[in-house]
């Protein structure tokens, strides 16, 4: 209960600001309509109009809520929860690209980190390239990746996953380099006194030591993966996925559809970060590191 009140206060404040902003942003169009119809709007009529327009500049929360319900829960009730008009379907399409990209990004990031920790040449040379790769706007490079991969006959899930990977490997590299280097000089001396091989030092000491760092990176990485997958859906004119919903919504000025897709993406991100958080808590507690 003690935690509930502050949370509710914040949520209420957000809703109040949102409704207020909806009035301010949608009022010109409401007045415009009234002028053309030759009627005078009272304040309450104006507010009612700004909260119920078909293509508002900023849809009100209940409009977005209704749209989300119409494309999720209502469709499930009708037994068509996974039809191509359902947000569940689009979320699933985006999620599958996100998950594959996240997996590839985690593998790539870990391999690069191992290279950086064990190889002096890579230590001196790779990091600047990794950082440079992240300074390029993903929206600029995404169409290139899709076109190039299409030219070599790869299309569908993989190009989106590659863009996803491009964003998610970075936090993994940074976190894992730090994590694999986290054993103390004493711990490294200790395995040396046992004459452990480099592989043994890695599996017995460095990798387990890096786990807290890995999980922190994974949380950032999965969120970046989702952004990558959505951005990857934009330039292809994809017909499915949350990115496609965003694009279609912006073509036809369907702001309510855009906002419902945005909120769905946020919920998906929260869900994925939450799952990783649970795995993290479980693993680190089992390892005595939490």
């Amino acid at each position: 209960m003690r935690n509930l009140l502050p949370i509710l206060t914040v949520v209420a404040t957000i809703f109040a600001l949102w409704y207020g902003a909806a009035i301010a942003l949608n009022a010109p169009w409401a007045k415009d309509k009234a002028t053309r119809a030759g009627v005078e709007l009272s304040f309450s009529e104006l507010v009612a109009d700004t909260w119920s327009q078909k293509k508002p500049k900023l849809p009100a929360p209940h409009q977005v809520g209704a749209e989300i319900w119409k494309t999720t829960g209502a469709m499930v009730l009708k037994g068509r929860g996974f039809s191509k008009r359902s947000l569940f379907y689009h979320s699933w399409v985006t999620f599958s690209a996100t998950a594959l990209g996240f997996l590839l990004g985690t593998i790539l990031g870990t391999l690069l980190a191992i290279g950086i920790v064990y190889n002096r040449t890579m230590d001196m040379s790779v990091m600047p390239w990794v950082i440079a790769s992240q300074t390029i706007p993903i929206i600029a490079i995404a169409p290139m990746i899709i076109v190039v991969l299409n030219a070599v006959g790869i299309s569908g899930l993989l190009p989106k996953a590659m863009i996803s990977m491009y964003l998610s490997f970075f936090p993994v590299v940074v976190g894992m380099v730090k994590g694999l280097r986290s054993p103390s000089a004493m711990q490294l001396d200790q395995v040396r006194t046992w004459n452990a091989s480099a592989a043994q030092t890695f599996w017995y000491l460095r990798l387990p030591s890096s786990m807290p760092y890995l999980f922190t990176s994974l949380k950032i990485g999965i969120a970046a993966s989702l952004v990558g997958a959505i951005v990857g859906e934009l330039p292809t004119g994809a017909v499915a996925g949350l990115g496609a919903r965003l694009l279609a919504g912006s073509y036809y000025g369907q702001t309510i559809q855009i906002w419902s897709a945005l909120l769905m993406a946020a919920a998906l991100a929260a869900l994925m970060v939450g799952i990783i958080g649970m795995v993290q808590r479980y693993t680190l507690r089992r390892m005595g590191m939490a």
Partner: protein
Amino acid sequence: MVNALQEATGDLLHLGGPKVISAKDLSLTFQTNDGPVHALKDVSLDVHKGEFVSFIGPSGCGKTTFLRVMADLEQPTAGTITVNGTSPEEARRARAYGYVFQAAGLYPWRTIGGNVRLPLEIMGYDKAAQAERVKRVLELVELAGFEKKFPWQLSGGMQQRASIARALAFDADILLMDEPFGALDEIVRDHLNEQLLQLWANTQKTICFVTHSIPEAVYLSTKIVVMSPRPGRIADVIDSPLPRTRPLDIRDTPEFIEVAHRVRDGLRAGHEDD
């Protein structure tokens, strides 16, 4: 010929064992931004089988560095050293010594048993041998029954005992200990010192022990090496007249106090040029 014979018999008479560690004119200089630091300068010392040798001296006297050179964790810049008649590197590769650090350094994700088993897994002992050895050394340090506990469930003293068990698990003849009880309180320390002597008597190992504490050095050792800093060198080597079996109250005997005096004098002499 006669000389060699005398030397050999001298060694035998000395403590009845062959040389396990032999350092001659050993020097180690670290190059730092503030110029060279002479961690060790012309250090010569023989450690015989079955001895308990303590290294005592103020910070910077090179006692830990000396131990690390024996363990092949540092490379000397001049002089020679042999461990079991070979180079320290060969001795390390042959797993000739167990090293106990100041911190227990147990892996939190492994049980006590798992931590003691770690070097055995690395060295490729089979499962049955691992289990048997873990059980034996945990009994040796009086930690039987704690095999399935995790390090955080044990006190600092128990953790350090587990780390000693880990160093004993693979039957190295030499035990190198770098201030293993430095971070523990006096009462725990007394208890562990007693246990360590018991363990030394039971296992016949050669022990090199770095410490800051005069009573600890005198209580434990058959030979006390007093070192002094800048440059790190040996100020005095004292062969203890105390018997091998030592109850804790031996620390009140005149012999004990006399040896402690000599150690203190040695430490003071090393500081005269400050």
